[in-house]
């Protein structure tokens, strides 16, 4: 009976029951917390959602990216930010008047010894001073660079806007972490964030002769508006699509070391790890989706290109910006899949194309 529900809906339901049972938060004013559907939403939404809901708050999520959100993004954000950061502004703008607080955690580091994009660390200020009329911002700092112990403080910090009850906060944190683990293990079992969070399924080609790995930060891969639906487009060209989210952390860790050196950008590390993993699994081609102007990807995408080429795997770098025309992306995808098929046919039969 649960098959028709997405993981998120089930989680929400579970949390709702827990709320009623444990905390009796059914009376009084329910605090509304807004979360923009952008950037690390694709990584942490189940965690944030179950945390706030367990505290008795209601979580308001912005809608999927639309033309209006895109227009607002460009209007409100500083001009030289990358597209995903701009989109975050648009999503934040769309939440004005819908909630008591806007949740923009200041993520400085999400794993030991690793860093995250500086724009994500500075996001609370960036949004606060760019978009007028926002509700008060919950800008909890999360910094796990030295150790995971500071996470507890972050949870208490975020919860302080809703309740001061230490016991409740502790319970909510435990629930949130287990929801996060559940989400991660669903990802590792081959589900995509878009399936788990939005219940939108990738159309799987019936018969595919191409295995294509699509690398890129999750917010570039799964926002189907800003990337012009690239995953489904690939499926339409009868390619089976593989993304980095399915890889075990241990494998990512192992693969992402180049000559023993650790890659210290968390999101870059995953791409690099997935790249080597997919090279080992002998993909037919690799596409890297990067936002124009991304500092991390200027290294990582280039490294990926070099290693893919060295291993004889066709590689294509797709750069996203505010373009909405499909023609350019269609041409590139068609040419890329054509090229691989032509190559494969040649390897198998050997006489030239005609």
């Amino acid at each position: 009976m649960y098959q028709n529900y997405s993981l998120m809906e089930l989680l929400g339901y579970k949390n709702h029951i827990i709320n009623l049972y444990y905390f009796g938060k059914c009376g009084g004013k329910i605090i509304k917390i807004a979360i923009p559907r952008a950037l690390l939403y694709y990584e942490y939404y189940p965690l944030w959602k179950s945390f706030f809901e367990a505290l008795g708050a209601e979580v308001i999520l912005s809608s999927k990216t639309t033309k209006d959100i895109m227009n607002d993004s460009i209007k409100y954000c500083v001009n030289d930010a990358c597209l995903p950061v701009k989109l975050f502004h648009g999503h934040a703008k769309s939440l004005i008047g819908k909630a008591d607080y806007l949740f923009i955690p200041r993520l400085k580091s999400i794993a030991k010894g690793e860093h995250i994009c500086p724009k994500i660390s500075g996001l609370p200020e960036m949004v606060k001073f760019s978009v007028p009329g926002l509700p008060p911002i919950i800008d909890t700092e999360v910094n796990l660079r030295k150790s995971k112990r500071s996470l507890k403080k972050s949870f208490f910090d975020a919860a302080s806007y809703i309740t001061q009850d230490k016991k409740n906060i502790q319970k909510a944190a435990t629930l949130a972490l287990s929801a996060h683990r559940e989400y991660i293990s669903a990802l590792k079992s081959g589900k995509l964030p878009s399936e788990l969070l939005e219940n939108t399924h990738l159309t799987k080609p019936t018969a595919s002769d191409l295995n294509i790995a699509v690398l890129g930060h999750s917010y570039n891969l799964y926002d189907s508006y800003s990337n012009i639906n690239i995953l489904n487009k690939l499926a339409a060209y009868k390619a089976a699509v593989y993304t980095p989210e399915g890889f075990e952390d241990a494998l990512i860790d192992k693969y992402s070391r180049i000559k023993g050196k650790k890659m210290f950008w968390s999101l870059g590390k995953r791409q690099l790890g997935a790249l080597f993993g997919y090279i080992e699994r002998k993909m037919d081609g690799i596409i890297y989706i990067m936002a124009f102007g991304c500092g991390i990807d200027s290294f990582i995408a280039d490294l990926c290109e070099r290693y893919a080429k060295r291993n004889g795997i066709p590689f294509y770098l797709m750069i996203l910006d505010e373009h909405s025309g499909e023609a350019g992306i269609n041409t590139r995808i068609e040419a890329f899949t054509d090229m691989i098929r032509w190559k494969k046919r040649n390897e198998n039969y050997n006489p030239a194309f005609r």
Partner: protein
Amino acid sequence: MTAYYVGIDVGSVSTNLVLLDEQEKVFSKLYLRTQGQPIRVLTEGLKLLKNVAGKDYTILGAGVTGSGRQLAATMTKADIMKNEITAHAIAALHCCPNVNTVFEIGGQDSKIIFICNGVVSDFAMNTVCAAGTGSFLDRQAARLNIPIEEFGGYALKSQMPVQIAGRCAVFAESDMIHKQQTGHSTEDIVNGLCMALVRNYLNNLAKGKTIKEPVVFQGGVAANVGIIAAFERELQVKITVPEHYDVMGAIGAALLAKEEVKNRATTFRGFDNLNSEFVAKSFECNNCANKCEVVELMQNNCAVARWGDRCGRWSSMDNEVKEKKVEKQKTATLA
């Protein structure tokens, strides 16, 4: 009776048509300026081709390519619709079977295609902007008041090229004006622009890749002797420009069509059927917040194709139904 294959390349700047005979020789070619009106230019082009073909001919197949390929495919009911990269690679292989690198510079796109043993092994296209393409030269030629056809000749007369920023057409323009103001000759500035374009092209597309000879240079910009010279100076390799460099995309499309119709009859509408009037309209779909810009191609006031929507609501409308509607309307007007 002679048999032909039709190749059509609807690009942003030019619309090219070719008739290939059965020996894959170019019987006739047309290079027309699109001028933002692909439908009108394509209709005219097909009429011209019909005149060239004479009275006794048959069309065995038709292929379309270029950024306007969807429009052209719907209008002509071509047998095959292919992207520009594949079409250009096929055409380059046809004229120079041992080619290893293809440079193609068109109006809005520039491409580099690497070929290994007769198969495309890698390609790159300009990313987010049109710097390093033909439109950049067009624009600067207009500023300098030189017809684009003579642009390359000026570059060859230059004694010393001036350094001009080539990253962006806007930067280049301001740089160029400064150089003009300080008294550099037009020839030197033109040469500087050619070198800027070549530098930009190589930095953007060929970055970190080895360019192996033979190199074939095609696309409209290959007409520019200044650019060819700049490429040869920069790379120290010999650049081959094929005889029909300006219509290579169309040749590739025709060759692909030949392959496609090997075992079947063509679906090509024929030259005459274009007498019916084609009009493209666009509207904003208001069914959801995405507000897609949908293009609708009308034949005799009846929609025959729609595209541009994200959800498929418009583009997946049954083509058969649309065709029938058109037929119905035709008989109605005849009666």
